């Protein structure tokens, strides 16, 4: 019974994966026959796929081989259009982290001030409400025009999109610190700075960290699109480049890598959130 509790879920996960791979394998099995697509498309995808000998969509084994190549040699650099997946991921992670950290540097102090004063809260609210729903990519042309550098522009886009969840959560967390803790600080004649760091910050920390976790998730979603748009380097560019090369196996490898890195980023923030969360 205990074994089932412990191993039941992982075993089921493996089973789901195997079923998925089996269906995928069956769907992409080689079939012999005449040309099954029209002539234009046949030129595009190559004779092999067009005659139906082999589907244009790779089988799991093909993707597996490609993945293995990427895992064993992630950091090669053979010119601007052929870099290892590791290098591309490193570019993307660096952009996400710098945009995210810049946003944290701005959003947390500003959110703190907004949360401390209901007046400032109300004054900032309309701006936040208008700016928050703007798709971060809509800022891209403006950023390219003013910053004149595609790398810096994508960092700016990350900065903008990570800003709002952190700002809103910090302001909310600070504004909703329990009155009794503030009263304790008051009766102890605690100064403003000490109150901010010893009472409000720890009380609001779980809410702030939740905002940061949402932010990093959004930032990782946006970087892929931003890099597809501006090109050059990064995992988003990698996926788009492989689409131009029509290497579906590489695209799938890229997608998988995006998912794995996103999970790692999210889990890292979840760990940090746990560190500052206190049981009531």
């Amino acid at each position, binding site marked *: 019974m205990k074994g089932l509790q412990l191993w039941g879920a992982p075993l089921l996960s493996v089973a789901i994966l195997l079923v998925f791979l089996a269906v995928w394998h069956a769907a992409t099995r080689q079939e012999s026959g005449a040309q099954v697509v029209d002539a234009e498309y046949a030129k595009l995808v190559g004779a092999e796929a067009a005659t139906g000998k082999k589907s244009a969509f790779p089988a799991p084994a093909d993707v597996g081989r490609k993945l293995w190549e990427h895992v064993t040699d992630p950091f090669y650099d053979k010119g601007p259009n052929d870099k290892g997946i590791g290098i591309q991921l490193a570019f993307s992670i660096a952009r996400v982290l710098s945009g995210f950290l810049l946003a944290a540097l701005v959003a947390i102090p500003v959110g703190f001030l907004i949360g401390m004063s209901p007046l400032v809260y109300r004054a900032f609210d309309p701006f936040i409400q208008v700016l928050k729903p703007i798709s971060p990519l809509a800022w891209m042309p403006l950023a390219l025009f003013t910053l004149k550098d595609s790398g810096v522009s994508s960092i700016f886009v990350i900065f903008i999109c990570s800003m709002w969840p952190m700002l809103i959560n910090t302001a909310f967390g600070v504004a909703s610190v*329990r009155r*009794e*803790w503030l*009263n*304790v600080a*008051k*009766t*102890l*004649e*605690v100064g403003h700075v*000490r109150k901010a760091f*010893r*009472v409000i910050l*720890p*009380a609001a*920390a779980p809410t702030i960290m939740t905002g940061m976790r949402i932010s990093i998730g959004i930032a990782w979603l946006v970087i892929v699109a931003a890099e597809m748009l501006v090109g050059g380097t990064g995992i988003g560019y990698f996926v788009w480049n492989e689409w131009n090369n029509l290497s579906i196996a590489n695209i799938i490898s890229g997608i998988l890598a995006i998912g794995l890195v996103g999970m790692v980023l999210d889990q890292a923030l979840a760990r940090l959130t746990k560190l*500052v969360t*206190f*049981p*009531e």
Partner: protein
Amino acid sequence: MSDPLIRVEAIAKRFTGRDGADTTVFEDIHFGVEQGEFVCLIGHSGCGKTTILNILAGLEPASDGYVFVGGREIRGPSLDRAVIFQSHALMPWLTVLGNIAFAVTSRWPEWDKARVRAHCQKYIDLVHLTGAEKKRPAELSGGMKQRVGIARALAIQPKMLLMDEPFSALDALTRGMLQEEALRICAETHQTVFMITHDVDEAILLADKIILMTNGPRARIAEIVANTLPRSRSHDTVHKEPHYYPIRNHLVDFLVTRSKQFESSLSADYDPRHPPLVAPGLTEAAPGTTAAPGRPVEKAVVVSLRH
């Protein structure tokens, strides 16, 4: 009579409702708390008990009137007046030691770590929490949390302690134990205490003086009851004192009926500046005071709300 440690003069609290009409929660409240005295304030909910305590603490301004501590008018909270909150108000991210140390370093910022630690330990030992220093509030029972709250308040060595129904959220057994400890600690430290309660037995056990408030709105002090029982009281023996039932009946009687009818039965010589001081159980009221009108000071009927 020398000037009391705390003097409350004519305080009132009014709110302006949505329709613009003023609601007076209480008004014309006068009383004093002497150095080393334990004063309880009893009244029904809604008469503004907690507001009075918050005004004394400096957390809330009064709409009218003044509060003097040691002859000086108070302007906001002070380390001289420590508050024990009903909901204990411990910071859950700090340990027991951390919570008390936060108060101690607020009081004496110049102290080094070892001195703060030793000072905290003294008060942790005083409330019998030795061994629980590293625990967080979430790991403590309700009674232990309130002990931490008491230790935190005492550790800053305030001139007076303000308690807002500190034991009301606890179960009866824990409450009894903590009441006895509060008695012991107050006797040991000669602490001046102002406490709010709605528990008659708690007031008789702990207080030297019990202030009775009428029902709100426009609540006032109906009278001040002097506790005539000897100060060395305890749960086991208090009900065997000859004056116990007269006092208890007097208080219960007030809460059940007289707190509602106060306005209509107001005597002509009622002066809010000097509410009548009564001493139930004594054949004569304290000198220079008047007993409540139309009310025998002694009554034989046993009204029992508890037990």
